[in-house]
């Protein structure tokens, strides 16, 4: 973890048809850290990550990425800068193979006419297997359809994809939802490993016990506001639980 801020938000506001979903939110995220973003349902976590990932734009406020102000018009723009979001619903196509999933929208091509070209299947297959091995996920074949993988393995594929495309920031939206204890631990290990590879992660969850062991920093949200922003050494699980429950 360094002292540099990779992302800084200032006074973000967002309204959805009259509902004030995000109220004057300011947040600093340090490079190479794991930030746990916790809060109950409806606390504004999803709104915040939609803004950070470029899916929505804030009604007011500023976002700085590596010191420069950014205004994303699409998720693609955020991805090009290195901010990759792993949504609650898996961002994988169940019927498609692992290799094809890893390269959706960023296929390696030859004989290109404009943005359309023939896929370099062999090289993509190999890169896919390498990317999986990098996150310690050992699967048999890059041709396996994703619907034959377990929930934890799927999250592993998504994380491998983000790693392969050299993301600087990985936003994980409830990555441990609906996973068994064993699978949850697998995903937590993936995320912990990201720090050492120079990736900052923002881990969104309503389950404090999942994110607490691996987080460097914890940020609690309620009713669209940030109600606490603490380094792990300055807090403990009881205080955080109290904040979560009583807001």
């Amino acid at each position, binding site marked *: 973890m360094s002292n540099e801020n990779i992302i800084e938000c200032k006074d973000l506001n967002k309204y959805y048809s009259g509902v004030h979903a995000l109220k004057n939110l300011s947040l600093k995220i340090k490079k190479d850290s794991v930030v746990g973003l916790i809060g109950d349902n409806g606390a504004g976590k999803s709104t915040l990550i939609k803004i950070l990932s470029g899916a929505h734009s804030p009604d007011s406020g500023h976002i700085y990425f590596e010191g420069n102000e950014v205004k994303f018009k699409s998720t693609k723009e955020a991805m090009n800068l290195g901010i990759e979001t792993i949504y609650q619903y898996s961002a*994988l196509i169940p019927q498609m193979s692992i290799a094809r999933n890893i390269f*959706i929208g960023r296929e390696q*091509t030859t004989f290109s006419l404009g943005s359309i070209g023939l896929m370099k299947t062999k090289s993509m297959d190999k890169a896919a297997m390498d990317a999986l091995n990098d996150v310690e996920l050992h699967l048999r074949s890059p041709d396996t359809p994703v619907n034959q993988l377990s929930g934890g393995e799927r999250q592993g594929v998504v994380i491998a994809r983000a790693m392969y495309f050299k993301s600087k920031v990985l936003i994980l939206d409830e990555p441990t939802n609906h996973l068994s204890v064993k699978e949850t631990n697998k995903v937590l290990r993936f995320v912990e490993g990201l720090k050492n590879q120079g990736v900052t992660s923002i881990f969104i969850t309503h389950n404090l016990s999942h994110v607490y062991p691996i987080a460097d920093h914890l940020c609690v949200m309620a009713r669209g506001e940030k109600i606490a922003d603490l380094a792990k050494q300055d807090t403990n699980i009881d205080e955080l639980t109290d904040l979560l429950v009583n807001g």
Partner: protein
Amino acid sequence: MNTNNLKSILMRPEISTFIMFVVIMTGFFIANENFLSARNIRIVMGITPEYIIVAIGIAILMISGEFDLSVGSVFALVPMTMVQLVHQGMPPWVAIALGLSIGIAVGFVNGFITLRFGIPSFIATLGMLYIARSLTTVATGGFPPPFPHELPNELFVFQFEVFRASLFWMLGVAFIAGIMLHRSNLGNWIYSTGGDTAAASSMGIKTNNVKMFCFILCGFLAGFAGMIQTFRIEAPLPSQGYLLELESIAAAVIGGVSLFGGVGTIFGAAIGAILIRFLESGIIMARIDAEWFRAGLGSLIIISVVFNTWVVRRGENMVHKNQAEENENSSQKNNSVTESKDE
């Protein structure tokens, strides 16, 4: 590993359709050996390419997660436009280009209405089914016009020894469509859009553009196939392609294309279309009342989808069983390792 590859090939729905195709062909051949004579193949394959081209367009659109019920009407409207334009004194090739652009335009309107207003393509194209058919009839001005022989129909339907020129056009379409769908990144976008639109767009795929492309391609191919049929029979009929929309969806589904998007192949759709035409011919050749064709087609649709689902499920079970066994093996290995360490 090899057995796994074999299983994963057998799991593919278009392969089970192909097996069914072989079984049905053998059955009709036993009923009447003239079924596979050069003469009968010549007759069936003379008309089949038109249906395959429509089925390819429908299959690609269905893989992207949308429907087109207007293909049957476009199949009539496009050639009718060409014929009437030539009668107006337009050069044949200009008339062909304008006619084909009508197919493109209908596809665009289908896509625009579906995507802009967020309504099911089933409804948008159902409306277009009636509109395009009505326009075709209006364009005849009361009775079907004669076929203008300035049109270069021999180029598209010339009868060779066994096959017609249309077969080669179809192979060209299938080859290009196959490369596009299975080998290009555009194909990857089409599969991902149909497989899970939300996930695809979160990965930066412009899913609406992908769908629009598929709508337009489907309209174009339906018009192109309709042109080939009119050129073959040398008569532009306003009723041409009646119920073709359902038959094309049937061909795609028989060939393993999923109604829910994200699954299917060009090969499957082509086999589905061929199977339907040979079924029709086989029933006649077996001296069964031709009225039974629709009953046969109906049964074929149901049986093939049930069969495909069963094969895929069986294959999945095999994979899961293998995985379970492998896990057991590896855990046993681990156990023995730890045991030997303990010793």
